[in-house]
């Protein structure tokens, strides 16, 4: 303090605004951002162009409703499509209650103890574990120990485990985004903690929770590696049922066709990718609609 000299009386503060230079910095940054976007868009467009030009000619009703065949022009994807949808729904049904319950506990009930902080950090870490590791775990636990075999339910349990960290984190974020004034408002009317959570916080957090779950389901549907480990077959000509062995899903069908040498198989692989993309788009669209509908009146 004592060394700092007070500003000289009468000395005018001096600025060097250099507005042109500051604006140039801003313009350069904008340019860099747009270049990044452009590069990404280009890659995406090329990919889509490649898939569409190769795959579109093969898509017709027979392709959607047919079963795999050794002859590519007769092959269809119905078993894989049904497998993907069936497993996707089971993944949602399993991970929704478990993930939301865990998130509610961590966010609304658990005290801020060291143990709980470690727990939270580790859930985030689990989201980074390679999916193949979940596959190995699923094979050991669900397929073998619980004797579910190479069935869709074993695959669904494995994938549910895989997306659980994402569901939990998304739900916790959604719960955290509800301001404390909402919790206090419920408490001040004589609500118990559960009534507060159930009737005040959950409805307010619903858009975020639903979006998180739908996007996590989309991720599960796109996974191939863990399901291969659990035991998806590559040639399935019947429609899978949850508890019976023998099933496949779209990404595996794609992988299987794409690794054939014949060009026609590459074509139907591209067509299967298109079907998978449409499924993803539908789920993402659903997430957007749900979010918009549920959050129409939310404004804190």
């Amino acid at each position, binding site marked *: 303090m004592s060394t700092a000299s007070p500003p000289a009386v009468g000395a005018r503060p001096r600025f060097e605004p250099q507005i042109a230079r500051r604006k140039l910095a801003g313009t350069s940054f904008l340019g860099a951002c747009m270049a990044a976007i452009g590069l990404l868009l280009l890659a995406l467009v090329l990919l889509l162009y490649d898939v569409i030009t190769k795959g579109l000619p093969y898509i017709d009703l027979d392709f959607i409703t047919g079963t795999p065949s050794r002859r590519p022009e007769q092959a269809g994807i119905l078993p894989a499509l049904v497998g993907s949808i069936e497993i996707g729904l089971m993944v949602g049904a399993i991970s929704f209650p478990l993930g939301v319950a865990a998130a509610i506990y961590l966010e609304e009930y658990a005290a801020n103890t060291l143990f709980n902080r470690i727990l939270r950090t580790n859930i985030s870490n689990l989201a980074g574990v390679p999916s193949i590791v979940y596959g190995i775990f699923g094979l050991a636990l669900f397929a073998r120990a619980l004797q579910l075999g190479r069935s869709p339910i074993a695959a669904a349990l494995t994938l549910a485990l895989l997306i659980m960290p994402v569901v939990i984190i998304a739900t916790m974020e959604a719960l955290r985004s509800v301001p404390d004034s909402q919790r*206090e*408002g*419920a*408490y*001040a009317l004589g*609500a118990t903690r559960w009534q507060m959570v159930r*009737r005040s916080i959950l409805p307010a957090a619903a858009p975020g929770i639903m979006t998180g779950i739908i996007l996590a389901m989309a991720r599960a549907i796109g996974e191939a590696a863990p399901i291969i480990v659990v035991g998806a077959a590559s040639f399935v000509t019947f429609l899978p049922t949850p508890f019976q062995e023998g099933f496949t899903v779209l990404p595996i069908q794609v992988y299987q066709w794409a690794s054939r040498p014949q060009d026609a198989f590459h074509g139907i692989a591209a067509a299967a990718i298109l079907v998978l993309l449409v499924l993803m788009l539908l789920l993402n669209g659903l997430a957007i609609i749900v979010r918009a509908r549920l959050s129409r*009146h939310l404004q804190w």
Partner: protein
Amino acid sequence: MPSLLAPRQPAIGVTIAPLPPITPTLPVAERETVLRMHGVSCWYGSFRAVKDVSIDIGAREVTALIGPSGCGKTTLLRTLNRMNDLIPSYRTDGHIQFGGQDLYGPGVDPVAVRRRIGMVFQKPNPFPKSIYDNVAFGPRINGFKGNLDELVEQSLRRAALWNEVKDKLKQHGMALSGGQQQRLCIARTIAVEPEVILMDEPCSALDPRSTLQIEELMAELKRDYTIVIVTHNMQQAARASDRTVFLTMGEDRAGYVVEVDDTVKIFTNPRERLTEDYISGRFG
């Protein structure tokens, strides 16, 4: 400060019926005490935010808590309905009696306390539900068995909101104006039929017109309810309250009560120099 007690002059262009004159306050002996604080201190961990408060809150009166920012008004208010129990480091010392019972006694459930001692917050916090469901929220969670439609209407009427919303009960509470939202929060509070209503600067986020509406409402409500209000607005304390508690804080930043008296007395002839300085705007 006689100017503070002058009959309210509506702001230009605003037509609001004048408040009935402040009811003459009964002598202390005839007052019925609802909440009695004795030697109450409020701690956040090792920090004492409020020190040794001993005051009585009279039934069907408006008691105003005034004092500089950070002197512990909110803390003291939230201690009265055990809202501060939700803060892990928080602790209350001393005794608070509510209707003759120890508010912090071993068998007392804060959930039960909060239905009987409701609270309106500084920033209106309606739930993201319809106007109807906002008011019905409290009755529903508290197992109300009567006619819900009737209760909702009655609560909205008492909160002076019914006429403005009766045709749009299905609309969202958050779509209302700030002043309407705050009256909705008051309706929501009285729908569970509390005995005491705590208000923490309920008008600080509102325009002058809505502020006057809430003040009129308080004058109406105190026929049935005991009201404790924290306010930064001296005119509001002078106009709308019967009793005034003036708090300030000492060297240790702990808030303490300087003076409690009838509002008329505090604003015309305070006992303490500190009080006079504060209400005349010389500090705080």
